[in-house]
């Protein structure tokens, strides 16, 4: 009980000893699966994807552990600043962002094309965790008290929608909603929001871009346009289905290798995995993800401070949501929204976000006994 009230942080060595190494191992394992997959996607070559993925993995593992060792209170103090900084970045891309695939999403930093909308998911979790950290349930029940966090969610969602990036916008909204739910917002409010959202659907529909409408329509009936927009889903399902129980063998997935499969190195990486390693391989990866999920939730349950709880739960939900949406997408359960499989798909920002998220989770785990006063002035 002493540690709970002790404001002095434990030493680095202590922290390292406390670190949840099995989680680090799980994360590394998932990253290695991605490496092997990208090696196969390039037809058995390190370039253009596997080597860079591997290097990023190593660098980001170090960053992850480093992030876990930072004082949680420092992160708590910086939460709003981080949120506003990322919001500013979003604003900058909207202004000067490089035109890429017809959408403004990137800031080119030279070595990596930074996608602030990805970072926003973590920033939002941080900001909301801090906001609700100081709130007891009777406050959370007050509608007016919920207004600031709802604005905090809607602001980036609106900006990302404007980019336009429907998939990421929905993801940010989903993470935000999950945070509100975990913080204890009354259930009837979610029902109300869902009702309002449903009523607003026709308006949203009329504001969607053509390609986004096409995606939704294609999802509703992929067979209607088998070679146009439905092509991705159908080819992905064929590849997964063709994998069978045991798969076609590593580097022997004909669908992917013969280039019938689009984007096999990014959003459709899981398809290739499912084709080459079959049902067992695919389920093994799902189990890996579920294991990370369970570790995350156990951290959230054990944490003493409300901030650490919400933080751990938020990043875990975010991580799992990515994986769920990606796999649901490639198996044809939901529309193609362009969400990568964390740590497996090729892509700099996606890897960065996933690993920073894991870093935050580990930090909450290392500091699970640390208590943070309700109001920052007391710090």
């Amino acid at each position, binding site marked *: 009980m002493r540690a709970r009230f002790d404001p002095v942080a434990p030493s680095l060595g202590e922290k390292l000893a406390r670190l949840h190494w099995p989680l680090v191992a799980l994360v590394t394992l998932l990253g290695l699966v991605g490496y092997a997959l990208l090696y196969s996607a390039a037809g058995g070559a390190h370039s253009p994807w596997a080597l860079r993925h591997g290097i990023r993995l190593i660098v980001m593992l170090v960053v992850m552990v480093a992030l876990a060792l930072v004082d949680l209170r420092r992160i708590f103090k910086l939460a709003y600043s981080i949120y506003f900084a990322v919001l500013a970045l979003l604003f900058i891309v909207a202004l000067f962002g490089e035109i890429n695939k017809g959408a403004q999403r990137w800031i080119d930093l030279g070595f990596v094309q930074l996608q602030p909308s990805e970072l926003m998911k973590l920033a939002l979790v941080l900001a909301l965790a801090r906001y609700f950290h100081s709130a007891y349930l009777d406050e*959370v029940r007050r509608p007016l008290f919920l207004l600031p966090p709802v604005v905090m969610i809607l602001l980036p969602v609106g900006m990302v929608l404007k980019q336009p990036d429907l998939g990421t916008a929905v993801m940010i909204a989903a993470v935000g909603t999950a945070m509100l739910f975990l913080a204890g917002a009354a259930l009837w409010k979610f029902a109300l929001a869902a009702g309002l959202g449903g009523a607003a659907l026709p308006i949203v529909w009329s504001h969607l871009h053509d390609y986004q409408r096409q995606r939704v329509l294609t999802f509703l009936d992929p067979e209607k346009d088998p070679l146009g927009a439905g092509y991705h889903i159908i080819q992905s399902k064929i590849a997964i289905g063709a994998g069978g129980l045991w798969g076609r063998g590593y580097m022997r997935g004909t669908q992917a290798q013969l280039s019938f499969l689009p984007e096999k190195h990014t959003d459709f990486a899981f398809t290739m995995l499912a084709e080459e390693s079959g049902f067992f391989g695919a389920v093994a990866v799902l189990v890996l993800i579920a294991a990370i999920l369970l570790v995350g939730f156990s951290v959230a349950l054990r944490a003493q401070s409300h901030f650490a709880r919400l933080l751990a739960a938020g990043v875990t939900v975010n991580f799992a949501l990515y994986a769920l949406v990606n796999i649901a997408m490639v198996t044809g359960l939901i529309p193609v929204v362009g969400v990568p499989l964390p740590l497996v798909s090729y892509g700099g920002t996606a890897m960065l976000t996933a690993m920073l998220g894991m870093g935050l989770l580990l930090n909450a785990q290392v500091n699970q006994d640390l208590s943070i006063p309700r109001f920052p002035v007391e710090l």
Partner: protein
Amino acid sequence: MYQEADRSRCFRRRLLVVGGAQLALMGGLVWRLWQLQVRDHESYALLAEENRINQRLTVPPRGVLVDRRGRPLAVNVPTYRVRIVREQAKDPRRVLEALAQIITLDERRIEEVLEQLRLHRPFVPVTVREDLSWEEVARIAVRAPELPGILLDSGLLRRYPHGPVTAHVVGYVGPVSQAELARDDDPLLRLPDFRIGKSGVERTYDRELRGRAGLSRVEVNAVGREIREVDRREGEEGADLQLTIDLELQRFCMDRLADQEAAACVVLEVSTGAVLAMASVPTYDPNAFTGGLSATLWRQLANDPRHPLVNKCIRGQYPPGSTFKMITALAALEAGVVTPTSEVFCPGHMSLGNARFHCWRPGGHGRMGLVQALAQSCDVYFYEIARRVGIDAIAAMARKFGFGERLGLDLPGEMPGLMPDTKWKRERLKQPWQKGETLVCGIGQGFVTATPLQLAVMTARLCNGGRAVRPWIVRGHLAHVQEGRGLAPPPLGVRREHLEWVLKGMFEVVNGPRGTAKASALPLAGVFMAGKTGTSQVRRITRAERAIGAHKRKDRPREERDHALFVCYAPYDRPRFAVAVVVEHGESGAKTAAPIARDVMLEALRLDSAPEAPTGGRLALVEGR
């Protein structure tokens, strides 16, 4: 503290809900994977093996080219071709070698085909040979069982019905090069057998002629065999283009030049700048290029010193010689350094410093006014007025008439020629201008060079009232010909009166008693031609040579003989056509070039009076496809 306990209890409960939901969804995914990979595996495996969907581009027919009266100049003809599919051939080299036993197929071509096969996917057919004869088709068909992977089918081949006659204008098509692939992302270019415009109108208007690819989506099985077409999006056919060329006149020009080793002839409509004929000899047969040119023929064409592949009308740059004198005259008249009637005495040479500049006529011409100086092409008269007005004024006038710049004709590779002035020499040669050079340039020698097209444009601008016509050769899409093109060109800003004096001199050249081209007057009553001869030196004549008359000898090596030039227009009172003829090393403008120009002019006038061809052009065209 109860509040803290309260919210942590609430959080725990809700976390279990969220976590449970996510785990449940993961379970759902496992179920979904089981569905796809275990329950429905067989049907998906079948789909993967047998039903792959392939996109194939359909090649639109290339636009047809017709002359001004609708006669086809470039068409597409059906041809039989033999292709090979790597996947089915198993051992393509063996199959190709077997094929070479029954049809003409050289070792080089086999290597090329094998290279192509390596570059494309195993089920993509690669063309082995086109333009097969019926007999060859039959021979292949009979042996088909011994030739796995060999396909016979028909395609369209570009054909130029008048081959060598229109080669330099129409150009030809050929396989796409790496460089062309790099700067053009049209998917059609990626097709193994696609042909792209390589020269002439085929090249300048390639985009229009090419059309847009259609897309055909076919189901293919694992070995690439097409099972059925799923759907298709029609492409856009290439546009049919009409040229300003008159095929009959073009043929006449080519025939008339045929006995020259190397020569060029351009016929322009003086009011619009439309090119009626553009002949360059020697020529080549563009049909040899479309079916893949043999290496020997290519080398032969490329290494021929008379440059058959080059369109000399726009790429040949010759000293204009005396045909340039109109420009010098106009520069002097406009500057006021000479009047149309003031005279200069010609003793046969002119001295400047310690250099001596000779007139072509050793004894000299005596007293010369402008009209007679042009008619008799007196060099001394033009030395004198060039000296008075200076090179910069001459160059400025020359540029007004189209010298020293590309005229923007819609054919590739037009050369600008060269019109030097003091600035040019200072900047390019880093030397000051010499007075003597003004004299030499004043009679169209020295640094001055021009293309036959530029000479024809100059003539047209002189006789059409001083308007800056520009040459053009494509009237437009056959569906909507731009009739207005070339009309109302801007005025050059040269005084009408001065132009008329110069034209009078040109009239005397052909029709005057002492004119240099009086032997080439038109044999027509009441229709007169005006022109100007030119004989331009290829090399400097040394004093010793001049003394013994070596520069006039017939036995000089060909490449040292003078170029023969003639420019003319007709009818004198109501100009319609301008003709420029250059005969390389033809020795004498009056004796070699002028008679050719006269005959071409006669033919142009004759065809002009013939009734304009009906709109039947479109019909002839459809058959041409």
